[in-house]
């Protein structure tokens, strides 16, 4: 188990998230994919802290965690709004601002 | 000496705007009274400022200096000099008359007066600020509200085009107020971008510690820099002064703007451009100015004739006046390009004279338009039968615009031509004088078409002479024209030391400067 293994894993997870982002259309499914990617990023932070020393990586991971939580909360609120106005959560339907 | 008069002059319209904003929309009279109070304070203040200016002493007086951004050396430094005083009074007059002339604005009047006052505060600020960045800031404050003022309160498509090219008008919505507002704002902003670039070069090359105009003026920039930067300043400010070929915002903008806005814009704002070219461009970059004056003067000479001829072909009353502004601003730039005391005095005097004259014109045009509901002069005729006072004031404005002795227009034009002749650029004086003749042709033609002849046709039944407040605007401006024409020293005594002082900086390395002429 070396740092490069962890990074490879994180990259792979990130790419899985990207795949989800590219194929999904439901707002919540997109949120799930984003979570996947965020998680991969967090993994890199912690791995760096563990393999390179120092506590900063973990601090960052914690911050990122908190911010992700906030993002999810706001994102879900938006999804609910979207649902309320369109009776649907497919993002490409919310296109009123697009002329 | 250090009173807060200048701050008061600048702040009064802004504070009045605040009060207007706090007035309920329904209190029509209160809105106007607040605006008038703000205008009056500024007007009176500007009169005090010019009366108390010591011409024997010259230089900057009533200096007020407040640090604004100390780390960058930005100061809110206000002071009045020989040029600032008369231009302050001009702005005061036009604002006062403009508020009176727009007494009858109906739609969203509160917002209208707020923007008008904010704009004027910017104009006052430009004329007194002695710090380049603050100067620029006030300049933008003066320019930007125009977009909204024209876009909302303007008028569209009053004289439909004819001929094979009318599809172009449809394509671009030429004559529409949104088009006019957008074009005006975009062109002036491009000009601002050029000014901004020049501003930073001047700031950094001067050491990057201060924007003070005096310090920048004393800085010796190298020749290369000056030659590169001066055109930026000239064209940047020149766009607002209607310098050919960047004048095309002016006819559309002035034609679409509401009365008071046209008055302020053609009357005062265009002067900001010329003032900027002279005060910033020529004084701070003397070598660049000397290098470029042949071009500046030639373009100005083109402006004079070209504007006059283009005006002759218009059938929309507002376009005629707007093109005449282009022509007359050419005289200002021509005077500036002569680099002679007579020319510079003439240029600044022309700023004042043309300001008052065009203010009068636009007030009258607004008045006619409000009553006739058209601006097409070919539909008009015989208006003098029912609105003799309007006809009289219009004729007065015409006479001043063709440079009749006894009106303010003559003094400035004559001094500018004299300066052009004395500066050795004989060729400049010829289009100048010819321009005055062409002006005579088109203004008198317009007067005859609109006012003379049998009584107005039956399409017009609301024509009448001015109402209460409109009288005020017309009388103030008309009297100004005649008084300055007969007694130009009223403001010339202030302009002259300013010109000599500033010109001293431009010509100092070349030769010691003799007094006039």
């Amino acid at each position, binding site marked *: 188990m070396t740092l490069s293994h962890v990074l490879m894993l994180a990259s792979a997870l990130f790419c899985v998230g990207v795949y989800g982002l590219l194929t999904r259309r439901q707002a919540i499914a997109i949120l799930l994919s984003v979570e996947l990617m965020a998680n991969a990023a967090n993994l890199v932070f912690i791995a760096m802290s563990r393999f390179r020393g120092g506590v900063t990586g973990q601090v960052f991971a914690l911050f990122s965690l908190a911010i992700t939580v906030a993002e999810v909360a706001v994102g879900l609120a938006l999804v609910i709004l979207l649902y309320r106005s369109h009776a649907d959560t497919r*993002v490409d339907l919310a296109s009123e601002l*697009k002329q | 000496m250090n009173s807060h008069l200048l701050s008061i002059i600048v702040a009064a319209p802004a504070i009045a705007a605040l009060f207007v904003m706090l007035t309920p929309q329904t209190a029509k009279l209160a809105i106007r009274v607040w605006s008038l109070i703000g205008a009056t304070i500024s007007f009176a203040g500007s009169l005090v400022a010019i009366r108390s200016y010591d011409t024997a002493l010259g230089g900057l007086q009533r200096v007020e200096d407040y640090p604004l951004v100390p780390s960058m050396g930005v100061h809110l430094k206000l002071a009045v000099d020989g040029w600032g005083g008369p231009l302050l009074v001009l702005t005061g007059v036009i604002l006062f008359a403009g508020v009176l002339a727009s007494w009858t604005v109906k739609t969203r009047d509160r917002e209208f007066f707020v923007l008008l006052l904010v704009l004027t505060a910017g104009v006052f600020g430009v004329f007194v600020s002695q710090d380049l960045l603050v100067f620029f800031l006030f300049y933008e404050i003066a320019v930007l509200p125009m977009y909204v003022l024209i876009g909302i309160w303007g008028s569209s498509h009053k004289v439909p085009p004819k001929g094979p090219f009318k599809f172009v008008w449809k394509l671009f919505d030429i004559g529409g107020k949104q088009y006019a507002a957008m074009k005006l704002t975009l062109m002036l902003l491009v000009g601002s971008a050029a000014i901004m670039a020049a501003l930073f070069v001047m700031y950094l090359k001067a050491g990057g510690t201060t924007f003070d105009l005096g310090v920048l003026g004393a800085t010796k920039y190298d020749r290369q820099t000056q030659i590169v930067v001066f055109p930026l300043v000239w064209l940047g400010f020149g766009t607002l002064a209607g310098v050919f070929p960047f004048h*095309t915002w002016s006819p559309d903008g002035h034609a679409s703007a509401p009365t008071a806005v046209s008055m302020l814009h053609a009357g005062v704002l265009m002067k900001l451009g010329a003032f900027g070219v002279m005060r910033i461009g020529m004084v701070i970059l003397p070598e660049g100015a000397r290098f470029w004056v042949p071009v500046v003067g030639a373009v100005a000479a083109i402006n004079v004739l*070209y504007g006059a001829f*283009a005006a002759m072909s218009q059938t929309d009353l507002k376009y005629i006046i707007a093109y005449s502004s282009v022509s007359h601003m050419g005289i200002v730039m021509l005077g500036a390009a002569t680099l002679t005391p007579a020319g510079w005095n003439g240029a600044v005097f022309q700023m004042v004279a043309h300001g008052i004259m065009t203010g009068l014109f636009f007030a009258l045009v607004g008045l006619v338009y409000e009553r006739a509901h058209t601006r097409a002069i070919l539909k008009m005729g015989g208006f003098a039968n029912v609105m003799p006072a309007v006809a009289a004031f219009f004729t007065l404005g015409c006479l001043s615009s063709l440079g009749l002795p006894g009106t303010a227009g003559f003094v400035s034009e004559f001094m500018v031509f004299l300066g052009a002749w004395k500066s050795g650029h004989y060729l400049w004086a010829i289009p100048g004088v010819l321009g005055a003749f062409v002006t005579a042709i088109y203004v008198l033609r317009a007067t*005859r078409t609109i006012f*003379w002849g049998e009584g107005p046709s039956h399409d017009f039944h609301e024509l009448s002479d001015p109402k209460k407040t409109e009288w005020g605007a017309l009388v103030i401006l008309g009297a100004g024209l005649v008084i300055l024409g007969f007694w130009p020293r009223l403001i010339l005594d202030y302009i002259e030391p300013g010109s000599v002082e500033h010109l001293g900086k431009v010509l100092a390395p070349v030769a010691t400067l003799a007094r006039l*002429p």
Partner: protein
Amino acid sequence: MTPPVLYALVALWTPAIAALLLAILYPLRKKGQPAAVVAILGSLVSLGAAITLFTDRLHDDATHRLVVPWIGSGASTIAEVGVHVDGVSASMLVVVTLVATCVQVFSIGYMHDEPPEAYGRYFTYHALFLFSMNLLVVAPNILQLFAGWELVGVTSYLLIGFYFKKPSAARAAVKAFWVTKFADMGLLFGLLVLFAASGTFGWEPTLSPPVATAVTLLFFLAVVGKSAQFPLHVWLPDAMEGPTPVSALLHAATMVAAGVFLVVRANPLFEQAPITRSIMLGLGAATALFAALLALVQTDIKKTLAYSTCSQLGYMVAALGAGSMLGGFFHLTTHAFFKALLFLAAGSAIHAVHSNEITDMGGLAKRMPLTATAFSVGALALAGVPGLSGFFSKDLVLESVEGKLGNVPYAVLMLTAFLTAFYMGKVVFVAFFGKPSGEKAAHAHESGPSMSGPLVVLMVPTVVAGYFGATFAKVQGEPYHFAFGAGPATASALGLAGIGLAYAVYGRGPRAAVPAPIAMIDRVAKTRAVNRVYEWGFRNVTLVLADGLAFIDRYVVDGLINLLGWGAIEGGRKLRPIQTGLAPDYVLAVVLGVVGLAVWAVFGSWR
């Protein structure tokens, strides 16, 4: 301030005050009659001051001056204004104020039928005119003269266009202004050249010959315009659209003479330019003959007088060109009196008949004896009949021209004297003798005292002014001698012959047949060739140029700007599909970017 300066200031400023009062006090102007009182009071005071000044001149030949800085102050003064009192300005001041006062009094009756408001406006213009003319006359330098010059131009414009409802009056007013304004560019340029060369606007500086020629030629261009010399005479006949008293004052006696006055005033400059003088002599003589020929064929009494004015101004210009400042100025003076008299008498007749056409008159002498007498006296003076003022001044002109330029101008002016007598005789015989040609003429009656009074007053100088030539010359400080020699005798003989021929042709009244040579001139005149050249130029040069430039401005200069705007909008429209609003597309872009960066980071190091 010496007394002469004070008189001059009074003469200058009383009409100004009257004008200002009338302009500002709308109620006064609206009432009509009070406006006339104010204006005439101003003129009377001005007249009194002018006469005092003139009599003062008889025993004082010093020049009095009072100037204040106008443009600039102290050391930086460019231009000054003030009053300059010498023989020239004092004499001219008397002429101007006297004629103006007579005309204003005459106008009380003549303009009686106008609505009060127009009446008030009329007198306001008159007061303004008198001020402007006096400003011109007492000018201490050519710049102030120019200021007055332009101001009289404006009052002329306003007065010609007084009946602004009439399209023809509107056109005539604008035309007069355009033509004179065009000519005035010469004066403006002349001032620029003069100031650049000498640093003053005075008429005394000594210039190098080419500069002097240039300056005087430029000034002369203005003179040609103002004094209606060929080919810029076209505005004067049209200017007869104004009320007749206006024609008498502005377009006969005073304003058109301003051009001649300018040359008299600037005589020191013109003395330095012999070339200019020769041109003046030639052009003056040509104009005199040309205008006289045109006067022959007019049937409109005012137009006849207008062409006659052109012709007489040609005499004055010729005299000045011949170097006789006194001849030109004296003829100006006498001409002012008798031409004003003629116009006022014509106005009186027109007022009675309500027509300008002499063919509508006829036999007026019986019903309007005073008017007929006045007109006849004026006509005789104009014809140069011995004993009347015109005789003396015209002889002075002819005498000065004699021997110049191979005697051609002399011969031309002699011929013109004959023609003048002929066409004046024609007007007198057709309009005032014979039988009435219509109802109106048959029932015409003498005008009231306000109109006949000025006629009587003006008849006095018309008759006697010639005998004061010596006095006049003394005031100007010029030598004067008059001898009844061959020249004057020929001229008088030609004048009498002209009158006799006119009686032979037109003695039977309005229905006389038109002689063949005159009919031929008439056909030529009807082509309005000179006017048509200007009209063609205006339509096909000026307006086309204006339309062309406006087109270029709208579609080329502005077109480029619009093209830029169009390009920005179209570009934006083309680029907009990139912004699909779909998250996957943006993700794709980000991914591709990251891949690119990674490739660069990884493989970039191979370089």
